[in-house]
């Protein structure tokens, strides 16, 4: 199917907790659509299935070449992820293609260990740090129906109209 339309808030799917995914051909097709959609936006380093209208626990990220990346596992496509360990804390300003007019200072764990599986059903365990860890947490939040606005504490101190948006 290729790149799909990225839904924007207030689309209800973005605020709905997604369901687990069975590994197999359907998951592999969803994975291809996620990667195609991510690759279609140059600045995009990750996308979650609810953002393309599929309420399924699947996402992909790729922080390759990103100047802030500490760890980099290249293209990661994962279904049914669980953050099993998190430590440290770091605040960074985040944007999201589903909330294109805002950015916000979001505090997240500096390091995470994520367990899940590939679309084919192979078990995956990934330890990520820094920007890649942030990307995992942002995408996994989407699978629970959470947007970055759910992670900020102050509208005046932490949320900003986006001054420029590079698609």
């Amino acid at each position, binding site marked *: 199917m290729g790149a799909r339309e990225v839904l924007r808030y207030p689309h209800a799917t973005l605020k709905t907790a997604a369901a687990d995914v069975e590994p197999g051909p359907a998951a592999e097709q969803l994975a291809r659509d996620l990667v195609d959609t991510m690759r279609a936006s140059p600045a*995009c380093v990750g996308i979650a299935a609810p953002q393309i209208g599929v309420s399924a626990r699947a996402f992909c990220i790729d922080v390759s070449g990103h100047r802030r990346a500490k760890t980099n596992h290249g293209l990661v496509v994962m279904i049914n992820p669980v953050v099993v360990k998190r430590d440290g804390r770091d605040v960074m300003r985040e944007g999201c293609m589903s909330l294109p007019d805002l950015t916000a200072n979001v505090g997240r764990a500096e390091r995470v260990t994520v367990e899940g599986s590939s679309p084919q059903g192979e078990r995956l365990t990934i330890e990520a740090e820094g920007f890649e860890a942030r*990307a995992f947490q*942002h995408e996994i939040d989407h699978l629970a129906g959470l947007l970055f606005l759910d992670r900020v504490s102050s509208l005046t101190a932490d949320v*900003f109209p*986006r001054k420029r948006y590079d698609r």
Partner: protein
Amino acid sequence: MHVAVTAVGADRPGIAAAVSKVLYEHGGNVEDSRMAILGGNFAMMLIVALPASADAASLERALSGPAEAFDLIVAVRPVAEASPEHAEGTNYVVTVYGADKPGIVYRVCSTLASHRVNVTDLATRIVGEERPVYVMILEATVPAGADAAEVEADLKALSAELSVDVAFHPLEEETL
């Protein structure tokens, strides 16, 4: 039409409710707004969309009720519908802190303006009683064509002159 509404008065419960009630009764819709306690005063700044039948002068008259009840300074003025387009550029955060003295805001903003840097967000706070520390944090857009290194050099020179600390760094936003 849109109007800018400002109201300031000694802080006490009920000010926001009383002012917003009048706005609502005039068919106004509060769009962008900020309300905060500044130096013990409750300060409201609101951009309000009004129906075509309303006007700024009658809204200001209607606000004389809460203005008298809460001893507020109130003003209502028409504003342009859309904000002007600003030049493309790179966003920076400027942090200034040090012993309080008059002129910090003026000198820092003048330095930025001399490079056509556009201030988009600014807040200041005085912290501490015996030896108050002045803190200013602002966001600004350095336009394409302006040299951020020159802006930073001028801010550093100013920080030495004013004996305050200045940090200047790009605001990195990441789309996930």
